[in-house]
């Protein structure tokens, strides 16, 4: 896991994390810690994009297009949200691959 998440980072949902979506909001269950995490609708959409196939800049471009916004307008929020999920141990890092 890089110290600082940037646009080239390829996020992947942690294999140890179970997730459900209810009325557009996600709930994550970390099997390692037993902790639950509540995601707002935007973070829920972001979580669904973390399939290990695209770098963050590509995800930003896709989401910007879907929301009708310029990529620069959402890039900071996407990086910050990803950093938070990584710090909470919810993403797979290279050692888990």
């Amino acid at each position, binding site marked *: 896991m890089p110290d600082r998440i940037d646009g080239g980072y390829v996020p992947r949902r942690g294999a140890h994390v179970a997730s459900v979506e209810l009325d557009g*909001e*996600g709930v994550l*269950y970390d*099997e390692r810690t037993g902790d639950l995490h509540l995601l707002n609708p935007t973070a829920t959409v972001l979580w669904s994009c973390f399939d290990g196939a695209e770098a963050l800049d590509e995800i930003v471009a896709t989401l910007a297009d879907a929301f009708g916004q310029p990529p620069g307008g959402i890039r900071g929020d996407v990086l910050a949200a990803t950093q938070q999920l990584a710090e909470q141990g919810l993403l797979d890092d290279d050692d888990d691959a």
Partner: protein
Amino acid sequence: MRPAASLGPAAAPPVPGPVQQTRTFRALEHTFAVRSNDAAIARHVEDIFADLTVDEAPGGTYLLADLGTDDTPRFLLRWGDEHLARTVAPGRALSMLQWHVNQRAVSSTTGHLLLHAAAAEWAGGALALPAPMNAGKTTLVAALVDDGFGYLTDETLALDRDTLRVRPYPKPLSIDPGSREVLARLRPDVHASLRTTLEWQWHVPASSIRPGAVVGPTPLRWVVAPRYELGATTRLEPLARAEAVLVLAGQSFDQPLGAGGFRALADVVRQCACSRLVVGDLAAAATMIGHLVRKGPDA
């Protein structure tokens, strides 16, 4: 398996007089009978556990005996060979019995999600009231039963993992001193020798509040998370289903919950209407819940 508490095996003191045994009672997967040398205690146990009576042999027996000594705690409570308590007052021993029955019900029961929640039934749908201790669950569910709701439990909600139905655990409602004023009409009638038990908890079977109140397995349709707040305006507030999963998970007896338990909770919440309830006045709270369920779970 969830651990059950005990003080371990110990030699039993001699019990004076003949000992009689009650019928068998079932608390989820914990079946038991109670033996006593005091006829009034035996009859009282039959009365308070009336809604748990089953026609089968018990898995074990408690002994709740009056040792009749003058200068030591005289009421003895044992579970098989295990010493549980020795108390000055019969009411304390009866409360310990109820506590141990609940502990064994939780530790013995598998195949279910067990939540710290009360539950009532309306028109074939179950309403869960998840909350920590002293949040007013028993008081609220007693008021609902009095208002015509069916009774499922006042403390331990058992959700079948396969069917997602609430399995009834119609234990006697354990009414603490703080709730007696608002539930004064539920004061139990007890034998003169047991009047001091009323200083402890009141143990009130739901069938004594309203005959026929106990219902069968019921699908969960509403989650209402209560919170008692002195002087507050009683109000019902929407609770997002995602947040309701966290509320229920926080009241699970299984910690950690496990991925299977997590998904089961999410599946059951999908079929529920969810709310938070701030309780300032019991009657108002019961009325609000009545309006909620009459709208139906999809409203």
